[in-house]
C-alpha cells in the first residue's frame, strides 16, 4: 500500500495521458480511420523522401495503370504515382497549417470575446461579416487578390475558417464562465487570468481538437476546389487539387488520372475525421471512463 501510494503521488499526470491515449485506441472508428489515413500518409512520405519529381515523356501520354506506372500517366506523360504522392505533401501541409493557424488564432480571439464585453461586441460583428460570405468564395476572392502560391492558399483558407473556431471557443467560454466551479475558483482567490488558462482553456481543448481535425480536412478539400478552378497552388507545385484539375478534360479516356488523386483526398479526409471523433471521445474523461 505504501509503495502504491508513493507511485501514485509522484506521477499524477502521466496516468491521465496514458489513459487518454489508451482510450483513443478502443474507440470505434479510430482503427479504420488510422488505416485509411495511413495509406495516403505512407504514400506522401514515400513521395517526399524517395521519389524523384515525375519527368515528362511524350511517348507514354495517358497510359493506363501498369507495373511500370502503377497509377498510369497523365497528358504530359508524367508518372502519376510519383506525381500524386508528391502532390499529397502540399495538400496535407495546407490542411495541417490551416488547422493549426486557425485554431490558435481562433482560440485567442474566442477567449478574449468570451471574457471582454467590448472585444466581444466588435470582434463578433467582424466574424459575422466573414461568415456571411461562403468560405470558398471568400478564399477565391482572397486568392485572386493575392495571387497563386502556397502561403497565400494557407492564409486565404485560414481567414475563412477562423470565425468557426472563434464562435466555438466563445460559446464554450460563455457557458463555462457561468458554471459554479468558476465561482468556486474565484472564491478560492484565483485571478481571472489563471481561471481562464487553468480552468477554462483546458476544457475548450477537447472540442477544439476535434474542430481542428475537421478544419484540416475541409482545408484539404478547399485547396482542391481552389486548385481545380485555377486559384490554388501554382501548376509547378503539384497538389491533389491541381492534378485533378489538369486531368479533368481527359477523364473519359484516362479516368484513373482523376479518380486516383480523388481517392487519396477521400481516404485522407475520412481517415482524419474518424480519428477526430475518436479523439473527442478519448479527451472527455466521462466517455473515456465508460469504455
Amino acid at each position, binding site marked *: 500500500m505504501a509503495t502504491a501510494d508513493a507511485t501514485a503521488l509522484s506521477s*499524477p499526470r502521466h496516468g491521465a495521458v496514458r489513459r487518454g491515449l489508451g482510450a483513443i485506441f478502443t474507440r470505434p472508428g479510430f482503427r479504420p480511420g488510422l488505416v485509411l489515413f495511413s495509406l495516403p500518409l505512407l504514400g506522401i512520405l514515400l513521395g517526399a523522401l524517395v521519389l524523384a519529381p515525375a519527368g515528362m515523356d511524350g511517348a507514354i501520354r495517358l497510359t493506363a495503370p501498369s507495373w511500370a506506372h502503377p497509377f498510369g500517366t497523365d497528358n504530359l506523360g508524367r508518372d502519376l504515382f510519383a506525381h500524386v504522392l508528391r502532390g499529397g505533401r502540399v495538400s496535407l501541409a495546407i490542411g495541417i497549417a490551416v488547422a493549426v493557424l486557425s485554431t490558435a488564432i481562433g482560440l485567442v480571439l474566442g477567449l478574449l470575446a468570451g471574457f471582454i464585453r467590448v472585444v466581444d461586441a466588435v470582434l463578433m460583428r467582424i466574424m459575422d461579416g466573414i461568415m456571411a460570405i461562403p468560405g470558398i468564395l471568400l478564399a477565391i476572392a482572397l486568392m485572386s487578390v493575392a495571387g497563386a502560391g502556397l502561403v497565400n492558399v494557407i492564409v486565404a483558407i485560414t481567414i475563412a475558417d477562423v470565425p468557426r473556431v472563434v464562435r466555438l471557443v466563445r460559446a464554450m467560454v460563455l457557458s463555462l464562465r457561468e458554471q459554479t466551479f468558476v465561482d468556486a475558483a474565484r472564491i478560492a482567490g484565483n485571478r481571472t487570468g489563471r481561471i481562464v488558462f487553468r480552468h477554462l482553456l483546458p476544457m475548450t481543448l477537447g472540442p477544439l481538437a476535434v474542430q481542428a481535425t475537421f478544419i484540416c480536412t475541409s482545408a484539404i478539400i478547399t485547396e482542391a476546389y481552389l486548385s481545380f478552378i485555377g486559384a490554388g497552388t501554382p501548376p509547378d507545385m503539384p497538389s491533389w487539387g491541381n492534378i485533378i484539375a489538369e486531368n479533368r478534360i481527359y477523364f473519359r479516356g484516362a479516368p484513373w488520372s482523376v479518380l486516383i488523386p480523388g481517392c487519396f483526398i477521400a481516404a485522407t479526409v475520412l481517415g482524419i475525421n474518424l480519428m477526430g471523433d475518436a479523439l473527442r471521445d478519448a479527451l472527455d474523461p466521462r466517455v473515456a471512463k465508460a469504455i
Partner: protein
Amino acid sequence: MTALQESTNVLEVENLGIAFGSSESRLSVVEDLTFAVRSGELLALVGESGCGKSVTALAIMGLLPRPQASTPAGRIVFEGQDITTLDEAAMQDLRGRRIAMIFQEPMTALNPVMRIGRQIEEVLLRHRVVERGEARPRALELLRQVRIADPERRLRQYPHELSGGMRQRVMIAMALACDPVLLLADEPTTALDVTVQAQIMELIADLQRRRGTSVVLITHDLGIVAETADRVIVMYAGRVVETASVRTVLEAPRHPYTQGLIASVPRLGRNRRGSGAPLADIPGSVPPPGKRGRGCVFRQRCAWAIDACAERQPQLDPFGEGHRVACLRAHETVSS
C-alpha cells in the same frame, strides 16, 4: 480561546444594501442589513428563497455579478477592515485564505476535468500555504480531515467519479485548506440525501468547534439550524426580521414570519396526537424586489398585520437578552 477573542466580531455587516439593475430601474434586493458574526460561532442565516441570503454571501465575498449589481451600500467589516473598499487584488488575497465559501451544488462547484488532488493543491499553492512539493501530502491530509473514504484514491479521481456527499467533503477540504477565519456555507446540504446531510453538517460543526472557524450557515432548513447553530438571523425580503440565540428562536419566536417558518416544519407524530391538522404554511410568497413598498415587508402575509404596519418598516428593536425583533406587535405575538 481567550475571553477577549471570544467577544470579538470576525465580520460586521452594517446597513448593507444591495441593488440590481440600471439607475432607471433599480431593484433593491437587500436593504439595511446589519449583523455581526462572532469569533468561533456558527451563525445561521435563515429565510425562504429570494430573501437575499445568497446575495449577501456573494457581497461579503466581493463577487456580486457585474454589471447587474451596483456597488453595495453600507459597510462590510472583516477583521477590522472595511472590505467593500478593497481593490480586486486585495480581495483575491482574502478569498480562499481568510474567507472561504462552500456551495449548494457540489456537483457543479468542482472543475469536471481536473483531478480532485490538483484542485485542492491549487488553493494551497495559490495562497502559498505550502511549497510545491508539500502540496500533495497536505491535500491528502485535508481529505483525511474531512473523513472521506479512501483519500489516496480520491486525489487521483475526477469529480464525476465521486458521490454528492464526497464532493461536498472535497469542497469543505478545499475551503479549509488555508485555515480561513470565516466560512460561508450557502445551503451546503440542500442537494444531498438526508443521511448524508446529517454527516456533512456534523463535519462542518465539528471542524468549526475544533478549529475555531466562524461559520455563516445559509439555509432554509430549521432542522439543521436546531442541531448546529449558535445564533440565528431570520431574513425576510432582504431584511433581518428577527435575531436571537437558536433556543430563543425555536422556542419563543416573536416575529410572525419566524413563527410561520417553525410551524411549517413537519413533525413526526403530530397527527398521532390527534390534532389531524394539515401542515401549516405561510400564505403567499416573498414579494419580489420593487414591489415591497413602504411599511413592513411581511404585512401582506401576516395574520397580525394592522394599519400601522403599512406605514413604516419596523425597526429591529431589542426584545430580550440578545433577542431583536422587527415587528410592531412583537409584545403581543406570543405563540400559544
